[in-house]
């Protein structure tokens, strides 16, 4: 058998190498997803700096830029949330499957 079906075994009973790979995979996935959130914060900070540099005379003009900041925040956060959600769902589905199988074992 070239492949162990996930969920039929327990990662704690796997060989140490496989166990390490499993947890390292999860750790780096979470770390990289967090990195994307940090990138999002950085983009917001840069846009704030950029907007401060734009000298606008009227109040309504600054309202336009304020609206832009909200649009920028939401639209750049959306892909980050989508991909983090996809990764979390994979982890969640595995955990749910383990619990279901433990119940029926």
């Amino acid at each position, binding site marked *: *058998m070239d*492949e*162990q*079906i*996930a*969920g*039929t075994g327990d*990662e704690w009973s*796997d060989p140490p190498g*496989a166990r390490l*790979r*499993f947890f*390292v*995979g*999860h750790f*780096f*996935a979470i770390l*990289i997803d967090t990195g*994307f959130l940090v*990138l*999002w914060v950085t*983009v917001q900070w840069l*846009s704030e700096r*950029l*907007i401060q540099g*734009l000298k*606008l005379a009227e109040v309504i*003009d600054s309202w*336009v*830029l304020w609206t*832009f900041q909200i*649009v*920028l925040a939401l*639209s*750049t956060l*959306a*892909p*980050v949330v*989508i*991909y983090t*959600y*996809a*990764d979390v*769902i*994979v*982890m969640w*589905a*595995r955990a749910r*499957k383990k619990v*279901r*199988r433990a119940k*029926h074992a």
Partner: protein
Amino acid sequence: MPDALGARLPTEEPLGRSLSIYAKRLAIVLAVALANGVLLLMMWLGVTHPFPGGLLLGIVITSVATMFLWREGLTVKEAIRISEEGFVAGDLAHYEIGQAPPRVVALSLLSRALIREDLRQDHGLERVARALTRGGSDEEGRRRWMAAIDRARQELSAQTEGRDDPTLRNHVRRVIEALHELETLGP
């Protein structure tokens, strides 16, 4: 640990593929930020140096960016749905080995094997859906069908390994016969 259905984290893929997935994600985030940067520039130009059609152009850019994000979100949602259905099919087979009619178990195993085979390929979702019912050609369809049957047999063997129960053994034999029958019914 490889997961059923190929529903794996990017970090569990081979390094090249993992880097490619994260590069694509990064490119999308940066592209959205860049599109917003262009929008900001246009808004600033719009209020400081108004030009005809500026507002219209801004609306077009925003609409395209929104549609792109919406489509990306739907793709992820669909992949999750297919993946979860596969998990359910696999679990059904797992619980019903030894209980449900062999043909039901065989079909459950086969459905998961087919879905997993499709997720493993780098096909678009439309192609995946098409491939579930027929292959690109008769030969391709046959190849996929045989691969799924093999996968179902492997999974049956993995899930019943070490369970030394005569009744179960008899049931597994009948599931194998049902899979053999399905093999002859394929494309």
